[in-house]
């Protein structure tokens, strides 16, 4: 009470939740969770997919109503539950992971949408919205044409719009759910500065990110959730990435460089001066049988475009490609698949798998010819093919006919890999194979990758997370602005050295 430093005001939580329980379709999503945020702090909420982070955010913002017994205190007021309108009006703002924007509406409307919600219907004040939007963007040091529909902007700019939206009005606490997921490094740095400024001006920020380096850099306290239950609240000082991972998964990880020399193996893929104007230029590389070639670089470096060109879905404008020594050029991905190239999409949810359909159908879709007997699909062949790959890759499933969406991210990814292995590829391109896969399940994916390489498969591993390629590839290429600017051997180079080059 007589604390001369006056620090006790900061220890009093701005927002406190206790006894939060939530059940979805019989599954407990949150079990007696407590959570608190102090004014002006940067608080990290950490946990694997499905640990309950998003559910907790939705309860705080009133989208979900917690089960009875919950206590929510915000700014000295007690609530049994929130409503979206009160939450926004009283300064609780969110940047949703999926952004929750309205692509057909103008940038101004997207940013100032909260002025149109709540209360009785009234006339829209477009001028005021435009001012609010311009101001919010100006605070971020960005200028966009606020009258254009949001859909005319790329994903990174949409992310900025989502951030700007959270800054509208009197923000007291801002939740950021994976705000850096689609930002480049410089944009991310910029965002982190914004977070620091917000914090300095007394706004609390709750930060959710799978990039643990970011988390450690910015936050002062870390709340860890696992399987819907609270693990604990920890100060960020003295915390390490591996310690957070341990707390999140309840397991310990020990990563080692898997790289081995593969120079004596036959060359499977050879690219010479491959170019697709505006996307990548003069890319020359080789991948040998049994070799895992890592390609890393920032978002927008042209990695995915390069992969899609190998896969026949984009067409290079110059250069040569050869597979097993024979020149190749594809007019569609069907030809690429027939030639023995498989591509695991970075976007598993909308491009990699047909989410509502069954595990079995997703697994056989690329290799239907194998299960056809006498012109018709043979149910027996299909079952046994699926059974084979499920066992081979250790996928945990209920029934073959269950929807693929019922599986965890890691198991879905295994099915996606199995789908491509079933086509008997010579070259497997894995584009960001751990996106949306729990930290604990990632190692399992890379074990599979290593095993596949041992069978002689040539693999290209693309990831913007340098450690992933560093530990799991035999060689690492650094791609920047469409060009290959560096090659590293993980057995000789250090992780820090490559990270320095990539993130600089």
């Amino acid at each position, binding site marked *: 009470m007589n604390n001369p430093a006056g620090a006790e005001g900061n220890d009093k939580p701005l927002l406190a939740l206790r006894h939060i329980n939530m059940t979805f379709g019989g599954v407990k999503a949150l079990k007696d969770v407590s959570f608190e945020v102090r004014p002006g702090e940067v608080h990290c909420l950490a946990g694997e997919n499905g640990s309950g982070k998003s559910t907790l955010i939705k309860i705080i913002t009133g989208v979900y109503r917690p089960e009875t017994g919950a206590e929510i205190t915000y700014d000295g007021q007690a609530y049994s539950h929130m409503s979206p309108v009160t939450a926004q009006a009283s300064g609780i703002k969110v940047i949703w992971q999926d952004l929750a924007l309205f692509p057909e509406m103008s940038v101004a409307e997207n940013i100032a949408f909260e002025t149109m919600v709540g209360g009785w219907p009234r006339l829209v004040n477009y001028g005021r919205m435009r001012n609010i939007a311009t101001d919010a963007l100006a605070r971020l040091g960005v200028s966009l044409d606020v009258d254009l529909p949001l859909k005319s902007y*790329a994903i990174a700019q949409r992310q900025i719009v989502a951030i700007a939206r959270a800054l509208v009005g009197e923000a007291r606490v801002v939740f950021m759910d994976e705000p850096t997921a689609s930002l480049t490094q410089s944009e991310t740095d910029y965002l982190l500065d914004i977070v620091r400024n917000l914090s300095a001006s007394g706004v609390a920020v709750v930060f959710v990110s799978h990039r643990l380096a970011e988390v450690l850099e910015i936050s002062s306290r870390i709340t860890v959730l696992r399987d819907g239950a609270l693990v604990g609240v920890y100060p960020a000082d003295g915390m390490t990435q591996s310690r957070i991972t341990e707390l999140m998964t309840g397991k310990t990880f020990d990563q080692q460089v898997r790289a081995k020399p593969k120079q004596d193996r036959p060359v499977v893929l050879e690219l010479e001066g491959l170019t697709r104007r505006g996307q990548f230029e003069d890319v020359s590389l080789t991948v040998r049988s049994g070799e895992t070639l890592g390609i890393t670089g920032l978002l927008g470096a042209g990695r995915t475009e390069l992969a899609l060109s190998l896969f026949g879905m984009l067409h290079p404008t110059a250069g040569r490609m050869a597979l097993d020594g024979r020149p190749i050029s594809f007019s569609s991905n069907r030809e690429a698949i027939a030639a023995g190239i498989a591509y695991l999409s970075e976007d598993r949810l909308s491009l990699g798998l047909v989410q509502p359909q069954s595990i079995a159908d997703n697994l056989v879709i690329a290799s239907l010819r194998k299960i056809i007997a006498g012109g018709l699909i043979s149910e027996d062949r299909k079952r046994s093919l699926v059974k084979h790959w499920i066992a081979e890759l250790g996928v945990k499933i209920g029934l073959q006919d269950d929807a693929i969406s019922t599986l965890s991210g890691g198991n879905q990814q295994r099915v996606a890999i199995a789908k491509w292995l079933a086509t008997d590829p010579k070259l497997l391109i894995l584009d960001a194979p751990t996106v949306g896969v729990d930290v604990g399940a990632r190692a399992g994916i890379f074990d599979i990758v290593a095993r596949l390489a041992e069978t002689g498969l040539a693999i290209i591993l693309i990831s913007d997370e340098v450690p992933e390629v560093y530990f799991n590839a035999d060689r690492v290429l650094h791609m920047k602005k469409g060009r290959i600017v560096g090659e590293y051997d993980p057995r000789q180079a250090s992780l820090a050295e490559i990270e320095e080059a990539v993130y600089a």
Partner: protein
Amino acid sequence: MHSYIRTHATESALLLVILLISLFLSFATENFFTLGNAFDLLNTSSVNIIFAVGLLVVLIAGGIDISFAVAASVVQYVTAVMLGWIGGGNWLFGFLLAGTAGIVLGAFNAFLIHRFRIISIVATISTFNIYFGLLMFFTKGVSIYDLPDWLTTRVVLFEHEMANGTWVEITLPVLVMVVCVIATWLLITRTTTGRQLYAFGDNPEGARRFGIPIGAMQFIAFGWLGLMAGIAGLVQAHYAQEVVPNALYGRELDVLAAVVLGGARLGGGKGSVFGCVLGVLLVSITQNGLNLMGVSPFAFKMIVGAIILVAITLSNTSIEKLLPLARSEGKRP
């Protein structure tokens, strides 16, 4: 101007097509490019435009409605019968009656959709059959010709004799149409409710997280279409001077085609009143022009269908490719 074309590609393209067709018809026929013909066009298109702006609101909110045209038939019939009971009435009473009946039928759709989570196309195909089946069952398909005088008398709001002896007329349906168009435009572009409808259609989950009342959105959208359908039903009865139970049967698809042609997206979040009116007008101008050119009436529909087919093929390919628009990714409901 350039930015208008960019943000309103469909409307601009439609306008261009309409101008080209009109230009052609002005040279090809004697009477197309006359005021008399222009007003004639408006008179005949009024009912469809009223339907169209109503349907637009439902499409913007991410729904679809198949039942509105037969709902309008039900409203017509109910209104005519009730006017017969009370013996008389007037326009104001007629609109109140028809509007209320329309809203009730629209709200029933919203109730099914919201309360039982039935997808709008399933719900409205059901109510289409229910409304039409019951109407035909109870009326036995018998038309009503004995309508109150005020309803069947042509109301000419403005008339003017041109130098060549033809008459330019604006009739009541046009006025009602203009009021409905302006009201819908105000609703969807100038009120918070209207913007919430857009947001709800564009990204329902995002709208939910903002605390937009989902149920209210459904009732407002389908209620508005019900209101418009009720009004259109009464106006159609006035225009045709009779109530035929199956007169509007099949109209729903023609109107739907025109609205989608006007840039509304099946799936929600997109569409404008201007585009919607242009969509209806393109169809009626084509028909009108073919008529004036002396083309057999049997060939009208064929040519109209072909034009729509060509128009969508063009508007989905070249226009988006010609203009430097960021292609929006396909959205699945």
